[in-house]
């Protein structure tokens, strides 16, 4: 229980700090990709831009439309944020550092995070705005569709790992594993040990972009047709929570792919001969050094993947709704099924 409380406070604090910086980073990244400067005025090099936005948001009026369903409209941010944030409970931050020691971690994570859909539908219906309604419909159709390839991709990893506990997966991918891999580091990551997991990661990454409603799958918020989708009628801090959740979801799926494919909290540096790089950068389990190194590596990998998501957003054009559906059901799902078959056969033979 003390670990749970500690991790709750850590993830909440980190999420707030990360969102402030990630919004700034995304605007800067967009600006540089499009050959402009981005925010420059507030603070040195525009660094305080998000803080200023946040302060402005706190002074905005609370507007609940006449004709809106007040209860659903007000409850939606709670449901959306709580369901996404509860997912962090299953992310192993360090050896011995996981919120819930449940043996069905990844399964529970997928189950709880998909409750997010309920909140989106509540927001869309509660707003009594046509844009919100259409946005929520699209969002729900998209999220539930992409949950199928996402679930199959996770299943491939579960078959290779033989466990659903994310902490156990993390242990297997490092120098502390029971069947120790001589070099450790990057060579004991799942994606290197089971090369079949590389295409699985691509499916997972694509599906996770759609789960976050991120470009190129941001149809629910397509500003040229739907204004802001289900968020259209939200203002002030209630909208702020929706934004926080979007960035929280990005971080959650990035941390999850780091755990599933890229060695969780394990160091990427291998032991080479007498240069014990892996041991020097791992700490001792149970000691504070393992906590620090673990958090550093896991969050580092997670943030790199978040950066990749932003890069994708500003590189690829948005898909059309029929392309979105056919990509999910006609390409990703059959591919994921085939990979599941191959993964289980490999596991059975070797």
């Amino acid at each position, binding site marked *: *229980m003390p670990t*749970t*409380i500690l991790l*709750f406070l850590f993830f*909440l604090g980190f999420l707030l700090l990360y969102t402030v910086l990630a919004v700034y980073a995304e605007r800067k990244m967009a600006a540089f990709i499009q050959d402009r400067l981005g925010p420059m005025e507030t603070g040195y090099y525009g660094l305080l831009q998000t803080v200023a936005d946040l302060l402005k948001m*706190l*002074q905005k*009026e*609370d*507007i609940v439309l006449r*004709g809106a369903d007040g209860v659903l409209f007000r409850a939606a941010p*709670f449901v959306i*944020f*709580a*369901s996404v*944030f*509860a997912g962090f*409970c299953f992310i192993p931050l360090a050896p011995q550092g996981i*919120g*819930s*020691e*449940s043996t*069905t971690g990844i*399964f529970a994570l997928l189950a709880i995070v998909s409750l997010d859909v309920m909140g989106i539908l509540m927001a869309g*219906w509660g*707003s*009594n*705005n*046509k*844009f*919100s*309604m259409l946005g929520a*419909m699209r969002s729900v*159709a998209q999220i*539930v*569709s992409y*949950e*199928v390839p996402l*679930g199959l991709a996770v*299943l491939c990893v*579960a*078959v290779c790992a*033989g*466990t*659903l506990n994310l902490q156990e997966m993390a242990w297997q991918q490092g120098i502390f594993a029971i069947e120790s891999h001589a070099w450790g580091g990057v060579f004991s990551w799942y994606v290197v040990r089971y090369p079949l997991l590389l295409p699985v990661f691509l499916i997972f990454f694509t599906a996770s972009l759609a789960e976050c409603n991120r470009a190129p799958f941001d149809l629910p918020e397509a500003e040229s047709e739907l204004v802001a989708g289900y968020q259209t009628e939200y203002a*002030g*801090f209630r909208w*702020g*929570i929706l934004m926080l959740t979007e960035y929280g979801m990005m971080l959650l799926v990035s941390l999850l792919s780091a755990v599933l494919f890229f060695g969780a909290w394990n160091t990427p540096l291998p032991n080479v001969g007498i240069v014990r790089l892996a041991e020097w950068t791992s700490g001792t389990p149970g000691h504070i050094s393992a906590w620090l190194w673990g958090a550093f590596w896991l969050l580092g990998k997670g943030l790199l993947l978040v950066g990749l998501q932003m890069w994708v957003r500003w590189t690829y054009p948005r898909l059309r*709704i*029929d392309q979105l*559906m*056919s990509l999910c*059901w*006609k390409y990703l*799902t059959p591919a994921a*099924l085939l990979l599941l*078959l191959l993964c*289980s056969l490999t596991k*059975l033979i070797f």
Partner: protein
Amino acid sequence: MDLLVPTLFFIVGSLVFISITFGVWRLLRPHRPDANKLTAYECGEEPVGSAHGLFNSRFYIIALVFLLFEAELLFLFPWAVAAFRSQAAASTAWATFVSIEIFLFIFILAVGLGYVWRKGYFNWGKMNYSQTLIQNSPIPRSVYEAFNKRQ
């Protein structure tokens, strides 16, 4: 208990966090509603009707297909863990049993996918809105056709 208590703690904790931020927001924000602010946004026009109306049945079909697949996934998760325990996997009988199961399960999933695909539920076909509009229009159809030809 390993699952329930920490998850509940995270959920309740995040609800408390939102309540606190909303409390701070309440102290700082103005409250001056008027009739214009409280109407739905429809690009500056007066909103027409209510958004609580009919929706496209395509969304319903997607939800139904999702439900079928998710139920199958649900069964595959325990299978993924139970089938590949290293001690049990050593015996040949177990390996044969597991491989038959793999093919059976994935075959069922694939058949389901193929059925829905064949039925055309994945085709997000174009709705022919213009046809309906023309049918309900007081302007004769030939005018539209002449206009389209000129384009």
